[in-house]
């Protein structure tokens, strides 16, 4: 039995959703699917698609939202995927390839003539087809009248006029899909032929409003005021947003506002998540008997996953706000403006949004590279995105800058800005090197449609955020969870008994005059035990083993332990240093920070000398100390090879830069 017959037997009706970019296809998909959609990928490609299951009577419709393409015949990854899905050669992961049961072609009513080309290409596949003319409200506002009956007759397929934004006409889509038929017209097979056919179809079915360019062409018809107004307003806004001076200033203001919202609004949910995981950890330790399992659950699973999930609010806000910005039409303008700045480094303007997003967290930044059409451009962006200073680096910057510029906040602020600048310079420089070596070739000159300015859809932004958050949580619950358990094991074993210093302090505790004094001695004993345990753990042993490697950078065994233990996540460095130097893991406590600043070795020399601090700062700006990012890189680049390249290159750059820094200042 062929796949199509199998699906029919199961009552499943597969529909491929096709259309140009910026036709409101995603908005329509979200309106039809609501919260029932999930993201799946096409094996062997870098493309994925949203899939939803809809019910229409006894029929179950599986709706696949294919990537937006301008033509099925382009040599791009998106076009190839669409072509192969329609030709029955490609299916989503876990499904058998086979012809779809129907095609839902979404076109923009305000740009119908151009959109008809892809309709023609689709009709030539001779699959049951429903053509949905979206944004019909916008088309009407611009004075374009479309006769659905004539259009249907010319196409030989059913046609619906809808507005995905307002919902007009959308309630009929599912029922009409189920009864869609093979078109009774076959458009020409050549590019020129299809273009002429599209022009003819448009001329027959649409009565366009005369535009500001038609003066003199249409006797008795003046230019449409609405059309002139829209074009003039768009010209004026574009002139400002893409202006070589005003454009970057506006972009800086928009992005500063965006990040201010992300960092300020995300703070309380991040604190809440952190508190929830702390409570869960305490609950596990209180309820379960002490032992390996309890320790693994509390300190490996809960603490580890919590460290990652704490960034979920920032990630959600970033995707939500970016989606809103994209929907307005602004991000396309920002990308085309940034193209001239990024292209000398081998990156296209499309890379701007992912690189910007990486300043919050590299994970959504790398996930956002899916919008970059060329795979090499995309790969180059993925490789350098983690150079951007993410929020996980902030605790490390705070620690080191506060040691370097204690009581000098102005200089501290300059150092902070310098960290961000160093990351950007290293990222762009690395991209330039990558495009001349492992990813040879220039980035493609940017050709980008600038969509019509419009009010963004909150619903679309919400559903996209939900989807991306789901991917992130899934990653935290699988790959990252496994990594956390391994790192917990390395940092906790072999087990050490109580430390000699701890025993001494505990023995002195009952001799104290007050209960508070006794408690203080107990706490000091616990800190001494923690330091002792960390020193004797496998990570501690590894720290001593790799000390010769880090010695030229100015790091002793304690700092080497800090660097090693933060291999999974940079922010762990602060907590590790707090434990190793003071025995207290609360790296944000001001008293602990003070003790870390003042920490000295046995010979009385400071652990954090000026040269060492600068070296560490440079190292943490540049090093790939984030295993979740490596996991996402491996997934998005479809293989671990590029994750290793990223790790090797960033670690190498960080090492050399930190070495040079230390040797110059020591």
């Amino acid at each position, binding site marked *: 039995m062929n796949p199509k017959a199998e699906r029919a037997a199961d009552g499943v009706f597969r529909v491929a959703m096709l259309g140009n970019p910026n036709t409101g296809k995603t908005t329509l998909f979200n309106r039809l699917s609501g919260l029932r959609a999930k993201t799946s990928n096409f094996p062997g490609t870098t493309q994925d698609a949203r899939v939803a299951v809809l019910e229409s009577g006894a029929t179950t419709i599986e709706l696949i939202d294919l990537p937006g393409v*301008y*033509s099925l*015949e*382009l*040599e*791009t990854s998106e076009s190839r995927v669409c072509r192969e899905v329609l030709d029955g050669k490609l299916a989503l992961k876990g499904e058998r390839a086979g012809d779809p049961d129907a095609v839902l072609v979404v076109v923009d009513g*305000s*740009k*119908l*003539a*151009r959109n008809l*080309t892809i309709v023609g290409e689709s009709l030539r596949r001779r699959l049951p087809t429903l053509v949905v003319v979206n944004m019909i409200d916008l088309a009407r506002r*611009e004075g*374009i009248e479309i006769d659905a009956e004539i259009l249907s007759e010319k196409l030989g397929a059913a046609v619906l006029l809808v507005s995905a934004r307002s919902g007009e006409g959308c309630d009929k889509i599912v029922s009409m899909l189920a009864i869609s038929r093979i078109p009774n017209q076959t458009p020409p097979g050549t*590019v020129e032929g299809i*273009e*002429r056919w*599209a*022009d*003819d179809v*448009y*001329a027959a079915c*649409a009565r*366009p*409003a*005369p*535009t500001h*360019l*038609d003066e*003199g*062409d249409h006797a008795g018809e003046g230019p449409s005021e609405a*059309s002139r107004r*829209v*074009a003039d307003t*768009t*010209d004026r806004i*574009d*002139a400002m947003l*893409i202006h*070589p001076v005003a454009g970057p200033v506006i972009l800086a203001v928009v992005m500063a506002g965006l990040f201010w919202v992300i960092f300020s609004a995300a703070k309380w949910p991040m604190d809440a998540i952190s508190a929830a995981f702390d409570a869960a950890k305490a609950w596990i330790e209180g309820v379960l008997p002490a032992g390996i399992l309890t320790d693994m659950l509390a300190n490996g699973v809960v603490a580890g996953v919590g460290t990652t999930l704490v960034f979920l609010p920032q990630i959600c806000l970033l995707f939500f706000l970016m989606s809103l910005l994209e929907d307005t039409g602004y991000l*396309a*303008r920002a990308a*085309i*403006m940034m*193209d*001239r700045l990024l*292209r000398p480094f081998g990156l296209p303007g499309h890379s701007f949004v992912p690189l910007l997003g990486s300043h919050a967290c590299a994970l959504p930044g790398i996930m956002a590279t899916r919008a970059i059409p060329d795979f090499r451009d995309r790969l180059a962006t993925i490789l350098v995105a983690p150079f951007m200073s993410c929020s996980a680096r902030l605790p490390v910057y705070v620690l080191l800058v506060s040691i370097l510029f204690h009581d000098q906040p102005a200089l501290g602020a300059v150092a902070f800005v310098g960290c961000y600048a160093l990351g950007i310079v290293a990222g762009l420089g690395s991209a330039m090197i990558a495009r001349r070596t492992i990813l040879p070739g220039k980035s*493609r*000159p*940017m*050709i*980008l*449609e*600038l*969509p*019509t300015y419009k009010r963004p859809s909150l619903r679309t932004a919400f559903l996209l955020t939900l989807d991306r958050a789901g991917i992130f949580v899934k990653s935290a619950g699988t790959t990252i969870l496994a990594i956390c358990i391994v790192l917990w094991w390395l940092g906790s074993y072999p087990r050490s008994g109580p430390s000699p210093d701890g025993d001494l302090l505990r023995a002195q505790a009952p001799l104290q005059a007050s209960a508070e004094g006794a408690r203080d001695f107990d706490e000091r004993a616990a800190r001494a035990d923690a330091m002792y345990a960390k020193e004797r753990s496998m990570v501690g042993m590894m720290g001593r083993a790799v000390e010769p490697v880090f010695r030229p950078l100015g790091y002793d065994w304690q700092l080497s332990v800090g660097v090693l233990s933060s291999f999974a996540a940079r922010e762990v460095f602060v907590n590790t240093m707090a434990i190793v130097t003071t025995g207290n893991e609360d790296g944000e406590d001001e008293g602990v920070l003070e003790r870390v600043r003042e920490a000295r070795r046995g010979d009385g020399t400071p652990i954090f000398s000026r040269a060492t601090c600068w070296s560490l700062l440079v190292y943490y700006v540049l090093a790939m100390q984030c295993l979740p990012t490596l996991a996402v890189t491996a997934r998005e680049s479809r293989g671990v090879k590029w994750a290793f390249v990223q790790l090797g290159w960033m670690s190498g750059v960080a090492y050399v830069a930190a070495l040079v820094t230390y040797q110059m200042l020591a």
Partner: protein
Amino acid sequence: MVKIASGMLLKDQPTGWIGRVVSTDLPDSEAAMLRAMGLRPGAVVRVCRRGTPTVVEVVSGHQCKCHCRCRIGIASEVCGSIVVDRESH
């Protein structure tokens, strides 16, 4: 009657200029992408912004008055390979 002035490049045209696309001298992939976006031989375009990037508005196809008004941002080096004509009556 339309008189064609050949050899003009899109990148040299000022803001507000209106004319027809004659041909493109671009790699196949870029030419095909532009064509699919509506910027094809015979299409009437208006220069909305000159420079880097250039912004053009595809006003109509070859034969019809479609008034699609698709705006496309194009890197200047691509505009240097698009031959256009001025329409004069």
